[in-house]
């Protein structure tokens, strides 16, 4: 139960985030967004802005320096006259102060030639296509047996369509960069990033620099939830602006501009079919997904991939179809794929439980499997059943009367729901160094990121254990691309991936030390690339069971989550204190997904209309009454030296379905379209 190591800095305001470094004579950038959804920029009128005292430069496609292709067309800032979505950055003003920059940005006039656009996702759009792969490297479609036939012949069938809306990550710290070009031609970025090494690599490519000529510094990051996993155009904008004015430039994307430019979770339409025997044993699982990307890049969310992992059935199919619309480019958001996909699957399982008259917990246990259903691989460990049993026990599931819509408490209807969750245990190659000093202290270095996950603390505990030293003798340095190269804080792979490199470096250091440290200290390094190549074939995933109790106001349709419990099987938990917070944080975001989060696309203008935190609702303090997280002991020798699986994402995965299932149990109404707002629910009560 270790406190976060940077706790004191964070509660005293001393922890510096990207915008907050003292720079010499900084200038400030403000961006101009396109006001059309599709077309060409005819002309950029910068003169009025340039006449304002204090304005230093206006950048646009008319004067931007040439950039190099870094494999992400979103980063080709101001490189063409094409407008691909409304809200795209089309110009930037750099000025002496933020107030001047913002005012001047309003005076940049852009003339467009606009074209007809299409921003509507629908399952019968003729332009839907099958992508070559879904993120990151999964096949778009899979099929085994004869799912259609098996479904048709099943005694109990569920055939339902679920939708999830576009959702925005909305980390509390906006996407922020302070950029400075140094006299020797190198570039320093203070950036709100989930990975200083990957950002260094990408931005170096964009500006045609050697990787080592870019340094990215990010010791503290105000959340990301995926949206800071890859650099967004704002990073390029800051660096370009700094080059243009020959001074450091700071740019934080205003909250309203984040909705178009910093990524979001694609909306999904999902048809889910389950065919089962009378006792609920599954014969057929069919999951068809329709989702969107922009015309800029293909981002294919892996929505049906969890369906390939969780339940046994001889006949099965998954399919993804993508529409390239004139919309902002979707990106990573907490448990991409698993989160929307498991909402559909776990809602369908609840419908099946009801149709078959089987208890929802029991139904999931009945369809458990020893091997990963589609690959046939053994699981390195799988304790979904233990999570379900333990959770049911703790939550008081045995007292649940299965009949829906019958428990009144005054004018409130009350119900309980359950959902399974899963998330892959990924591992990525990393480098680290470990150093011993004569005075018995150690320093471990790796360009890992702590975006609020507790990574700094977890890595320190991991290093101390590997060094057989007290944690207070160990300093772990992270958050700087000048440190040994590390992968992104994403895919719940941070601690496992970085931790392995840290352990290997520490082991190697101990080997060298041989009990003593010579004058001047000793250092060892590690690279886990080779180690990861030779791993045995196992299906590696974390699992969980999530339970919700809701009350529904019969007169207003308002849903309140009274209690939520998640029980997880995620290998060894390194630091219970921060792990619990991560699980609970994920479930809190799951309440948002279930009840309030929705970015509404305006088909007339082609833009998300609710572009701030007053209109895009995230859970507030009063929305969270009682959320708890627990975990089952899980020893898994096939993962990594710590025996850990990632925990940053699984908390959100089953949360929304558990709430929706509880709403059904409370009211008898099945809501298949998120979020479950009063407007949606009340007419059905």
């Amino acid at each position, binding site marked *: 139960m270790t406190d976060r190591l940077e706790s004191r800095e964070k*509660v005293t305001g001393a922890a510096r985030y990207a915008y907050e470094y003292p720079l010499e004579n900084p200038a400030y950038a403000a961006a101009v967004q396109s006001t059309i959804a599709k077309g060409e920029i005819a002309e950029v009128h910068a003169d009025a802005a340039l006449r*304002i005292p204090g304005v230093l430069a206006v950048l646009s496609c008319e004067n931007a320096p040439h950039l190099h292709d870094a494999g992400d067309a979103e980063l080709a800032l101001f490189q063409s006259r094409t407008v691909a979505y409304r809200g795209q950055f089309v110009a930037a003003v750099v000025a002496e102060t933020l107030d001047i920059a913002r005012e001047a940005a309003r005076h940049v006039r852009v003339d467009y030639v606009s074209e007809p656009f299409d921003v509507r996702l629908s399952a019968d759009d003729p332009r839907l296509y099958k992508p070559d792969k879904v993120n990151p490297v999964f096949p778009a479609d899979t099929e085994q047996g004869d799912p259609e036939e098996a479904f048709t012949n099943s005694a109990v069938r569920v055939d339902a369509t679920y939708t999830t809306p576009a959702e925005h990550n909305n980390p*509390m*710290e906006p996407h922020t960069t302070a950029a400075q070009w140094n006299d020797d031609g190198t570039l320093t970025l203070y950036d709100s990033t989930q990975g200083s090494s990957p950002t260094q690599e990408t931005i170096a490519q964009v500006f045609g620099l050697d990787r080592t000529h870019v340094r990215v510094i990010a010791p503290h990051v*105000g959340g990301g939830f995926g949206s800071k996993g890859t650099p967004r155009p704002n990073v390029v904008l800051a660096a370009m602006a700094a080059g243009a004015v020959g001074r450091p430039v700071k740019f934080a994307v205003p909250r309203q501009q984040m909705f178009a430019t910093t990524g979001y979770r694609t909306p999904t339409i999902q048809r889910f079919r389950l065919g089962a025997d009378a006792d609920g044993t599954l014969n057929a699982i069919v999951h068809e997904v329709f989702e969107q990307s922009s015309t800029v890049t293909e981002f294919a969310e892996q929505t049906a991939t969890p369906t390939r992992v969780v339940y046994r059935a001889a006949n099965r199919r998954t399919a993804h179809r993508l529409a390239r619309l004139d919309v902002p480019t979707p990106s990573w958001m907490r448990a991409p794929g698993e989160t929307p996909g498991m909402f559909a699957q776990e809602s369908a399982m609840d419908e099946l439980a009801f149709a078959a008259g089987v208890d929802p917990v029991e139904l999931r246990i009945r369809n458990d499997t020893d091997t990963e259903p589609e690959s046939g691989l053994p699981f390195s460990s799988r304790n979904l059943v233990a999570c379900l049993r333990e959770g049911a026990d703790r939550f008081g599931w045995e007292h649940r009367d299965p009949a829906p819509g019958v428990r009144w408490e005054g004018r409130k209807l009350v119900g309980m729901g359950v959902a399974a969750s899963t998330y892959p245990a990924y591992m990525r190659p990393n480098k680290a160094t470990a150093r011993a000093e004569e005075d018995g202290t150690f320093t471990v270095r790796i360009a890992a990121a702590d975006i*609020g996950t507790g990574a700094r603390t977890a890595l320190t505990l991991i290093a101390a254990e590997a060094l057989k030293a007290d944690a207070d003798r160990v300093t772990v340095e992270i958050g700087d691309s000048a440190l040994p190269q590390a992968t992104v804080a994403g895919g719940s792979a941070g601690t496992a991936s970085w931790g392995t490199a840290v352990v290997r470096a520490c082991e190697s250091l101990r080997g060298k030390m041989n009990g003593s440290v010579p004058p001047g200290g000793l250092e060892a390094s590690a690279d886990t690339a080779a180690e990861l190549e030779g791993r045995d074939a196992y299906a590696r995933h974390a699992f969980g069971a999530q339970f919700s109790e809701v009350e529904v106001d019969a007169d207003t349709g308002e849903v309140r989550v009274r209690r939520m419990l998640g029980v997880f099987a995620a290998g060894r938990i390194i630091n219970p204190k921060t792990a619990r917070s991560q699980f609970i944080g994920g479930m809190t975001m799951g309440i948002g997904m279930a009840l309030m989060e929705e970015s509404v696309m305006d088909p007339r203008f082609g833009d998300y209309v609710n572009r701030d*935190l007053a209109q895009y609702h995230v859970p507030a303090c*009063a929305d969270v*009454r*009682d959320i708890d997280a627990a975990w089952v002991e899980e020893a898994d020798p096939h993962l990594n030296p710590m025996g850990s699986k990632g925990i940053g994402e699984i908390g959100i995965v089953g949360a929304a379905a558990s709430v929706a299932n509880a709403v059904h149990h409370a009211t008898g109404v099945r809501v298949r379209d998120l979020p479950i707002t009063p407007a949606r629910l009340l007419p059905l009560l």
Partner: protein
Amino acid sequence: MDSEVTPVHTEITLVVNGTEHRLRVDTRASLLDTLREDLGLTGSKKGCDHGQCGACTVLLDGRRANACLALAVAHDGAEVVTVEGLARDGRLSPLQEAFIEQDGFQCGYCTPGQLCSATAVLDEADRGWPSAVTGDLSADPVLDDDEIRERMSGNLCRCGAYMGIVRAVREAARKTETEEARA
């Protein structure tokens, strides 16, 4: 030149965390930007710049306020306490300690606002101010969890640290009460 875009500057005085500052501010500048950019007090955070998230909460003349919604020029002579002013002589306030103890944060970006807000919540309850969930408006409000959740709902935390935040405020309230009782 349009007069509307020519910056106008005014001299003001701010007393921030007990230190007096004489400043020349753009009349458009928010108190938040003035603290962060002019005074280098970057503890107060900017999450939305629109009064919607609470990350910028400071104590302005003793009451909590969103510094992003306050124009600096309108607060000439004001006393401001930011998160940097909550600890005394390097000793953390009971709330700051409780936030650490209860893990009332993850990324820490909302935390300065939460702490300033919570500091005001303790004070408001102490003065007997009711909230929207207070049952008996004439009785002294008791900071139970419902009261804390209601009073802290102007401060968003996307990391979802609310469970820890509520525990921390509850604990600090109890500690402060005990100390007061002892005194």
